[in-house]
């Protein structure tokens, strides 16, 4: 679809805002509506749009397949790692209360807030990469067949 100037220009224009919005939803998730799931999908949609318009190879050069695949795992590891950190700090699994700390109070979140923040980050990463991988998997098939 790279031949259609309107699509090309508009999408080029849109993609940064989509990404930005995705980040907003991600990081605002602990205060308002939003969170990792939504943010992940929004974020992935930017990449998918890029792929749709500029072709799969272009998208893959931005987000290489192997890299995205590893990100899926990374997100999950962040999520569960938080849980294990809580155990290590003497709480129950995912008991964020133990994440209290006194480094840069008022700037760095802590306690429940920090826990949710990190977990959401993990979720966001995983969802983003899963969405991209699904897109890659299907669009690559089309070409081979």
């Amino acid at each position: 679809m790279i031949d259609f100037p309107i699509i090309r220009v508009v999408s080029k224009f849109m993609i940064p805002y989509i990404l930005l919005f995705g980040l907003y939803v991600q990081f605002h998730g602990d205060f308002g509506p939003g969170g990792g799931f939504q943010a992940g999908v929004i974020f992935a949609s930017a990449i998918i749009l890029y792929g749709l318009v500029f072709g799969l190879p272009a998208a893959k050069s931005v987000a290489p397949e192997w890299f995205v695949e590893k990100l899926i795992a990374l997100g999950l590891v962040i999520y569960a790692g938080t849980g294990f950190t809580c155990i290590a700090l003497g709480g129950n699994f995912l008991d964020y209360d133990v994440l209290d700390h006194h480094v840069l109070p008022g700037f760095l979140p802590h306690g429940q807030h920090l826990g949710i923040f990190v977990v959401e980050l993990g979720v966001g990463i995983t969802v983003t990469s899963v969405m991209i991988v699904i897109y890659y998997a299907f669009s690559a098939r089309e070409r081979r067949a």
Partner: protein
Amino acid sequence: MTPETFFGLFNYWIVICLMMTGFYIVISSGNLIKTVIGLNIFQTSVFLLYITMGKLTDPVKRVTAPILEGGHGDSHGDHSAHGEHVAQVSFEEHASEQLHDAVKHAHADLSEAGHGGAEHAHEVAEVLYSNPLPSVLMLTAIVVGIATTALALALIVRIREDYGTIEEDEILELDKELQ
């Protein structure tokens, strides 16, 4: 059944219609893609059931989405510990016991709200919040649904590559020929 109750329960009618439509498509369609679409509609109906049950309406009070207003420290913040722990909780200074008290308090609201969604919640707060829990649950269910759909589509792609068709009858026919 009076018209009031009939239309008052409109969300259920929608859910039932969607559900049966989806189910019918799954059963009747020989086209695998259509079957998966049917499956999606079927699942969506359940999502709707959950989400509508969390919604609260009240003729007098203001009912709003469970979003914290006026910054932190409001003890009537929403909570959720279910599903994938995507709850949006923002208690900054609370020790865990206080937190649990607050949660209990909030929960009392929520379980009331759970009763069909149309009942009045008793007056604990000036502002009524819709129950966020069903939405959160559905977030998980939607994710599951996406995974299922993606997997189903991936399988269909493979089937199509192996058999050259996505019509169930033709596939079975091809298998019979093979044997």
